[in-house]
């Protein structure tokens, strides 16, 4: 029997799109850090108060979380044969990733 699972294709694409977003953000952040003459608390704090940094970071973190989900799901699909256990692990990973997303939002908007 052939089971057609379209999420395979979506995951494949999501992994690549998020990878490019993360790559661009990494270059962006490196360029910003290198351009700072020196880093102390005031400069660091001011940097993270910039909307452009905040929104770029949120966009980056969302990419990280989606990318992590697809990657970890693939690892579990390969090594965890028991369906029940695999589903439990999926739920734990999803809840953890959502928690990280909320946490990031709190960190950035507390600046």
């Amino acid at each position, binding site marked *: 029997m052939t089971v057609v699972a379209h999420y395979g294709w979506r995951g494949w694409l999501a992994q*690549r799109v998020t990878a490019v977003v993360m790559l661009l953000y990494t270059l962006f952040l490196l360029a910003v850090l290198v351009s700072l003459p020196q880093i102390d608390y005031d400069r660091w704090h001011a940097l*993270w108060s910039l909307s452009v940094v905040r929104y770029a970071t949120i966009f980056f973190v969302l990419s990280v979380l989606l990318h992590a989900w697809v*990657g970890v799901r693939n*690892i579990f699909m390969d090594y965890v044969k028991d369906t029940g256990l695999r589903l439990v692990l999926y739920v734990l990973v999803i809840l953890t990733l959502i928690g*990280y997303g909320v946490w*990031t939002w709190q*960190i950035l908007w507390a600046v």
Partner: protein
Amino acid sequence: MSKARPKFLNLLQIRQPIPAVVSILHRISGALLFLFLWIFLIGLQRSLASPESYLQLKAFIDEPLVKLVILGLVWAYLHHTFAGIRHLGLDLRLGIELPGARMTAYAVLALALGLTVIAGVLLW
């Protein structure tokens, strides 16, 4: 087809080709980054919460053991990134012939390790 063909599938004893080494390290580095995501978030939070927590974090990062963990994560980030770029290239059918695939696999290993060493020198 003969059923008596010898099989040797102990993955730990087979000498893996370099692209296979890069591939499994891609998976391992990805898993490590996932497991240590919270460290990045705590670091960001502590660095921004107050001038005091910023200085505390700075002192904490000066511990040799902490530096080692950071370097491990730096390597994981670099390897995962370069192996990922190589993967995107493969998707675009770049470097799919064996010599090219070997060369880019060596490049990924060398770039990740080399830049980790440089990061280590800068950190110490």
